[in-house]
């Protein structure tokens, strides 16, 4: 009996251990399959064409520059919305709101994070874009700005929850110290709490941006899907097309193994690398800040 018990323990421990390693395996697998299907692009399309400004796959124009600028402009707009509102809401929840308000707001923000992006895109088409068209007097309401607006909404919950955690983690003694010196609540938030939570707030911003750049359905539905180079300020109010939307819209129609297919995987690879970089930087910011705090405390 003892023998079989320790054998079972051994098997279960191994299973648990393997599951623990699985996350690493999956990241490697994802990267491997993106490389496998995406790398042929390099030999099939010249670099100059790939870096070109025309995306017109039917005639073999595979310039991904318009898609990259499209993603950048929509994301930038989203960040301009999500960062102030996200941090503002986090400050409100963690520093200003009474307890009962907090209990209502936190699940509500979480709920926004759970809203399917396709529902937001749907409302974008039916409600937001018609209003914007009339309000801003545009030829079409399906623009980069529409995308930014909705993406801002999608990125906000990420920013709020990470930033709020960071604010929450600031020791109460810091605030009490500031109050004791005669600072108002507002001064305390502005000069003590927020600076102390700086690295966490930075992480919140990065993760929010990462979330925005990877969002697909909403963007595909409301940005008008025009692969034009978006480098002027006016581009914000005209249709664009992002990297994610391009993959989603075109992958269904390409032949497996064709150049177009490989290029779409190549774009996926670029997106993967962007998210990798964003997340590695965001997490090292957190790690470093934690280490510094440990040094100070020890």
């Amino acid at each position: 009996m003892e023998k079989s018990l320790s054998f079972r323990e051994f098997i279960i421990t191994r299973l648990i251990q393997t599951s623990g390693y699985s996350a690493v395996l999956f990241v490697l697998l994802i990267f491997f399959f993106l490389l496998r299907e995406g790398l042929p692009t390099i030999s099939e399309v010249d670099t100059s064409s790939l870096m070109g400004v025309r995306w017109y796959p039917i005639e073999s124009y595979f310039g991904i520059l318009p898609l990259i600028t499209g993603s950048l402009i929509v994301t930038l707009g989203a960040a301009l919305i999500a960062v102030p509102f996200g941090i503002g809401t986090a400050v409100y929840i963690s520093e200003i709101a009474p307890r009962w308000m907090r209990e209502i707001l936190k699940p509500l923000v979480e709920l926004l994070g759970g809203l399917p992006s396709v529902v937001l895109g749907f409302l974008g088409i039916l409600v937001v874009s018609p209003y914007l068209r009339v309000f801003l007097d545009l030829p079409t309401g399906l623009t980069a700005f529409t995308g930014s607006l909705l993406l801002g909404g999608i990125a906000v919950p990420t920013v709020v929850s990470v930033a709020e955690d960071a604010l929450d983690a600031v020791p109460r003694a810091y605030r009490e110290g500031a109050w004791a010196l005669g600072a108002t609540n507002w001064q305390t938030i502005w000069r003590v709490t927020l600076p102390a939570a700086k690295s966490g707030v930075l992480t919140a911003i990065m993760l929010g941006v990462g979330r925005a750049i990877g969002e697909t359905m909403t963007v595909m539905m409301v940005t008008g899907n025009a692969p034009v180079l978006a480098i002027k300020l006016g581009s914000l109010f005209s249709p664009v097309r992002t990297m994610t939307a391009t993959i989603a819209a075109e992958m269904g129609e390409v032949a497996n193994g064709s150049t177009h297919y490989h290029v779409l995987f190549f774009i996926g690879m670029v997106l993967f690398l962007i998210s990798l970089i964003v997340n590695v930087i965001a997490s090292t910011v957190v790690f470093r800040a934690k280490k510094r705090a440990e040094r100070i405390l020890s």
Partner: protein
Amino acid sequence: MMKLFARNRHTVQRIGFSLITLMAVVTVLPIVGTVIFILFKGGSAVSWEFLTGFPHDGMRAGGILPAIIGTLYLTIGTAIFSVPLGIAAAIYLAEYAKENRLTRLIRLAIINLAGIPSVVYGLFGLGLFVLFLQFGTSILAASLTLSIMTLPVIISTAEESLRSVPQSFRTVSISLGATRWQTIRRIVLKEALPGILTGVILGLERAAGETAPILFTGAAFFLPRLPGSPFDATMALPYHLFVISTQVPEMPIQIQYGTALVLLVFVLTMNVVATVIRSRARARRQW
């Protein structure tokens, strides 16, 4: 002078607080607005026939049963793979892993999995499950793809929940002759269960609402019957909403709002259940 200064500071504070409060309101109101708006607009479209009927006339009439069932299948399929794997990985991190380079690598991998764009998961699923493993465009391929996407949510919430169980329970259990696994199974898992459940539901909620990962791995534009096996493609609520709001001309607006409503209710129910489980467990916890 002093008095003036003091009043000034408090005016600044009052303005500042109002501004921040306004921002919070602007952030939260649209959420509430969206939900109420869709409930209001879609309510009239939802009927028993709508929920239990098949679409016809090029999806411009009839019900959305195959999409509902499809989303149900995909959610269950996702749970089958991601729940055991995610919980086991969380147990590894919370109970077995030492703080070393390998563990840091695993944590980094989990953070990265959480950040990978959903459409890239779709590409990966297409490359690995649909083509390489030849599962075809199927419920199986889509569920596996969604599982990997869901994994980081489940792992991180479950780990947090396991870690919140007091260390002394483990020490006592071990000292009474329990093995490590017996301790985990009989004490730690039992106590962490509500937290783990919350994480699982929140993870599955995300999977149920996702479109991009299933676009090329399992979603069908239209199916005249329900899928018969895991190797069949399936309709799904989010993809269906995408299709009828962008791909089908002259689509009756009622059906669009109705579909959005059903999807929203599906997802919100999971969200509310998760929130309730969490707050109940917090209130009842004795340690």
